[in-house]
């Protein structure tokens, strides 16, 4: 096979422009997924049966069906059901947040249960109400414990973000496909995309690892 990167060099900036979108997409999905996952995890540990039931069923559905199916459903069904003309990017962020919320809620639940029971008892004995106890005492410790897992989830989101190219979001992968179609060469643009993803993922992994080390030292 002859690889000729020379022909796509002029197109590389075009592909690189997708980085910002991919990163934005990942960041938004991570943040919303984390917030939604926190809510779901609080439902899961609550004594309120409908809430635990809801969050368990929810998690089961989102973990039990393919992400691409969820994405397609939300992208195509939202306009029909609500009349709102959802953009591909919005549909992507929305789906990924809902999906990652399901995964993260399990992680956070584990993190909350791993916090020493005495912490909650100390807060209660001071007369601190449940919501404040959770927010100020339990969650900060839980999140600290699961930061490595959260960083991993964020890396997974980044890799999975390529799925949105299917509904036409011009991310890194989509752009490399456009170049491929224009120039009638397929391997080179995709390899460039792969390299870009690899560099970003390695960067994030290194960052997450450094963070983990730092946290270990501080506790």
């Amino acid at each position, binding site marked *: 096979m002859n690889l000729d990167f020379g022909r796509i060099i002029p197109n590389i900036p075009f592909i690189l422009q997708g980085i910002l979108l991919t990163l934005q997409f990942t960041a938004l999905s991570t943040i919303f997924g984390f917030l939604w996952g926190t809510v779901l995890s609080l439902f899961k540990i609550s004594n309120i049966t409908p809430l635990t039931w809801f969050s368990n069923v929810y998690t089961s559905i989102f973990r039990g069906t393919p992400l691409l199916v969820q994405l397609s459903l939300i992208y195509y069904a939202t306009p029909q059901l609500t009349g709102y003309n959802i953009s591909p990017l919005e549909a992507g962020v929305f789906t990924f947040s809902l999906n990652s919320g399901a995964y993260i809620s399990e992680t956070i639940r584990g993190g909350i249960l791993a916090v020493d029971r005495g*912490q909650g008892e*100390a807060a*209660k004995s*001071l007369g601190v109400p449940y919501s404040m106890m959770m927010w100020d005492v339990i969650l900060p410790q839980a999140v600290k414990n699961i930061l490595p897992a959260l960083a991993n989830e964020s890396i997974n989101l980044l890799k999975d973000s390529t799925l949105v190219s299917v509904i036409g979001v011009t991310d890194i992968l989509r752009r490399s496909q456009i170049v491929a179609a224009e120039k009638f060469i397929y391997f080179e643009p995709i390899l460039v995309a792969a390299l870009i993803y690899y560099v970003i993922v390695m960067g994030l992994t290194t960052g997450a690892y450094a963070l983990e080390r730092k946290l270990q030292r501080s506790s």
Partner: protein
Amino acid sequence: MPSNENYNVAVKVNDLHKYFGELQVLKGISNEINKGEVVAIIGPSGSGKSTFLRCMNLLEVPTKGNIYVDGVDITQPKVDIMKIRQNIGMVFQHFHLFPHMTVLENVMYAPIKVKKLSKVEAKQQASALLARVGLESKAQVYPSRLSGGQKQRVAIARSLAMQPEIMLFDEPTSALDPEMVKEVLDVMKGLADSGMTMAIVTHEMGFAKEVADRILFLDEGKLAEDATPDDFFSNPQCDRAKQFLEKML
């Protein structure tokens, strides 16, 4: 809530029962703790001392019986337990300081969040309390940097910051290295001298003898003996207390 209880009584326990599933841990305990009184709760491991103490601020929910704090029956479903707990400090064997807050923040947290004190007021109060337990120099430090004795003194200061009328201690020195026991007991002694109502689960017999006004001896979930320290240590009535003291002393 008006009450017809004796205004001198801080805590009144009436026929307290507690089950954990099938396991009956407390088998009908009745007692009264007067205001300003220091009561030491002692007994063999597993006799229900911690459970008894933890029922007094509803960290454990009694299965049967009543507990009156300042005349209010806290076992009634309609009571505001958060309000009651603000009035009852608790010190744990393992301190349970908040690890992500500095010493000062640990002491300021509940007054600010629960009592809505201003930061300035809360800080003044916290500094004074830390001085009282001899730890003003550690205000900006995180708990992980403290020794066990220092942690427990901070925990006491944290409880006192809510200005409770009653303080509960569950084996406050059992997790400490021997050389740190005294610094914590000294703080507790000071507290007792200041007139605080205290219920202390402890294995420190010397301390119980010296500081307590009364000894409650629990055995297998029953209040086996209720006596002054002098009577209890020199002339225990029940066999179980005799055996227990032989082992302890």
